[in-house]
């Protein structure tokens, strides 16, 4: 349970609990409502499996209810699962031809595995012709993780959660400095914070994917988005691209300069200790997902409400090729349609996607719950947010996601599980300084395309 980024992200992503109404988030243990029926993909009507856990669960249930009320003849049957149970069950069920009509997922490497096993429908034509309007309403960046070999196999839905550089305004006042405008600024801020006894960066390094967020940005800012794209596309020796090696080297430079809090490799993100380091003033900055805003607001006393929390997109690297508007993280959650379902079931599922997943009521509900849904129309809803801090934050998240030239999916979800596990292992060693950039690249080149 603890190590998996996938778990954590999937639980929290989308919730990004902000706003007063969300105070319950983070502690809401997902309800276990195991599958009671064995409703498979065959015959008995369209089915939809998704995750429990508030506030997302209520929003999904409301979507289905609206659909079923409007379509009494072709009702959608649902099964709700706890995160871990879902991941096991959905894989086995699809493998056994017993999966649901509508498959909820995370896109990327997982989706690719379904595609390769011939389990999901190609939705390219349907989206381009019949649902052009729906398609154009969604952030274009969300489609990357839904696309395999140039074809779209899933519809992005739900919410965006980019990775953001958070900082404590009080810490910067203490040393009389401005937030970093470049990577070089970061490097020169490090000794100044250390002198004052404030750790420059908080990091929950034991979770491994937390370290990965740094590499995702460094690769992008130094070499541009194509460096990882080449790796993702399986280009030979993609990890030993000169920009990649440079990024890995810069990473180790920051670690050697004591950029991270003492003991970072034994801190986990699951316990939220990394957030606590930021809001208790022990660390000045933190690179983390947008979903941590709610946690810091809930547990950080007046840290958020008092206006001490600052945030920004990751700064550029002077002389780097990357577009500074690029971001990484979770561009959305995804719905695919089972290739094994009957035509009638597929039609029902498509109708549900078209009419009830990103409709006005849903978009409204997501924004109220403190998240930015993956549609451009989310912007119109933001004016209704009364809390000043929340409104500012939601606008920032919206702008980051909407303006990103490239919204890269988190590496461990973009890659296949096999490559992702090797990656996380090697990242842990890189941050321990027990392997060199070259050794890192060599062992990662070995799993390209796997």
């Amino acid at each position, binding site marked *: 349970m603890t190590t998996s980024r996938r778990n954590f992200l999937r639980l929290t992503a989308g919730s990004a609990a902000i706003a007063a109404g969300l105070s319950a988030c983070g502690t809401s243990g997902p309800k276990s409502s195991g599958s009671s029926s064995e409703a498979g993909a065959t015959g008995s009507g369209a089915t939809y499996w998704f995750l429990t856990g508030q506030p997302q669960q209520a929003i999904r249930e409301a979507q289905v209810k609206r659909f079923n009320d409007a379509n009494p003849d072709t009702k959608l049957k649902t099964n709700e699962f706890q995160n871990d149970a879902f991941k096991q069950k959905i894989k086995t069920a699809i*493998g056994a031809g017993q999966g649901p009509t509508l498959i909820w997922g995370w896109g990327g490497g997982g989706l690719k*595995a379904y595609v390769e*096993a011939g389990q999901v429908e190609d939705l390219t034509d349907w989206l381009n012709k019949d649902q052009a309007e729906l398609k154009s309403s969604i952030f274009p960046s969300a489609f990357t993780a839904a696309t395999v070999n140039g074809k779209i196999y899933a519809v992005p839905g739900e919410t965006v959660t980019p990775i953001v550089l958070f900082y404590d305004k009080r810490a910067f006042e203490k040393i009389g400095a401005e937030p970093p405008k470049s990577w070089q600024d970061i490097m020169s801020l490090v000794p100044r914070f250390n002198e004052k006894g404030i750790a420059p960066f908080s990091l929950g390094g*034991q979770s491994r994917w937390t370290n990965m967020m740094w590499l995702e940005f460094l690769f992008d800012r130094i070499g541009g988005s194509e460096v990882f794209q080449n790796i993702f596309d399986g280009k030979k020796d993609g990890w030993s691209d000169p920009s990649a090696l440079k990024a890995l080297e810069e990473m180790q430079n920051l670690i050697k300069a004591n950029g991270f809090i003492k003991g970072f*490799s*034994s801190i986990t993100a699951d*316990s939220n200790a990394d957030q606590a380091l930021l809001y208790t003033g022990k660390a000045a900055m933190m690179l983390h997902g947008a979903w941590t805003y709610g946690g810091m607001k809930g547990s950080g006393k007046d840290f958020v409400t008092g206006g001490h929390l600052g945030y920004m997109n990751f700064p550029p690297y002077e002389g780097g090729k990357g577009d500074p508007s690029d971001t990484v993280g979770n561009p959305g959650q995804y719905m695919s349609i089972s290739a094994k379902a009957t035509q009638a079931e597929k039609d029902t599922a498509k109708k549900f996607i078209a009419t009830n997943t990103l409709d006005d009521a849903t978009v409204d509900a997501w924004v109220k719950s403190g998240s930015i849904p993956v549609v451009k129309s989310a912007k119109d809803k933001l004016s209704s947010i009364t809390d000043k801090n929340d409104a500012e934050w939601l606008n920032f998240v919206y702008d980051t996601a909407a303006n990103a030239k490239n919204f890269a999916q988190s590496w461990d979800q973009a890659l296949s*599980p096999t490559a992702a596990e090797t990656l996380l292992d090697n990242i*842990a060693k890189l941050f321990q300084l027990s392997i060199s950039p070259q050794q890192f690249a060599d062992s990662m080149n070995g799993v390209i395309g796997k």
Partner: protein
Amino acid sequence: MTAAAPTVAKVAGRTTSRAGRSGSVAWMALPALAIFLVFGIVPLVGVLLLSFTQWDGLGAIHPAGISNWRSVLSDPGLPHALFVTFEIMILSWAVQTPMSLLLGVFLAGRQRYRAFLAVLYFVPLLLSSAAIAITYKALLDPNFGLGAGLHLDFLAQDWLGKTNLAIGVVIFVVSWQFIPFHSLIYQGGVRQIPTTMYEAASIDGAGRVRQFFSITLPQLKYTIITSSTLMVVGSLTFFDLIFVLTAGGPGDATRVLALDMYKRGFQANLMGPASVIAVLLVLIGLALALILRRLGGSTTASQQEGA
């Protein structure tokens, strides 16, 4: 031993009727046998077969010959995982055995306060490994843990982030958890030793230490072997504790075989190589159990001989 002879003769005389009777009750073993077969042997064979296949848990299972075995056995990570597994096994045995032995001997006394202490010592065993791991992780946190809270600098180390410290912490926590159980075994063992032996030794003028080394320790031979077998074979399956405490880190410093198997199988979706490790674990466990049995000799009757 004189009394034994007639018994043996009697038994021999009734061999046939005995065999008949035990034959008629043999069916009583069937449920146990069936459960062992279904939940023990079948999965074992399944894993063995799986180790010769390529499977990601999603699609079809493809035969892979010995390629999994070749890749796992030539993986430089394997000797490391083996080394860590044995390191933790041997060190935790070396810490636990003397402490459990002494505690067991101490607790074998009949005073009432010792019964109370025994209950107290037993508490760690009642907690789940995951809960223990989470608690220790919180206590050892360099920024929010015990050391930082009490301003004790020597305690505010990066306990789980440095290779040697992390191994030490794992061994400490394992010992903390299991010493109570082994103390209980030793306590039982010590209480089995006839008091007449100690009385005789006292008359001969042997002191407490002499009695411990000349009577208690030799008499506990089988208890030591039982307890050691449980420790050694049990340590092969340490998973939950390490998984929660260090997740195999820092780097792969505490990545034991069981964890390696989990990570390959369920995180990297490589069921074939994970099965290879599972088979290796079974083989190592069996070999260790056999070796320990050999060390103990094959008969069980000689312990009380001197009495």
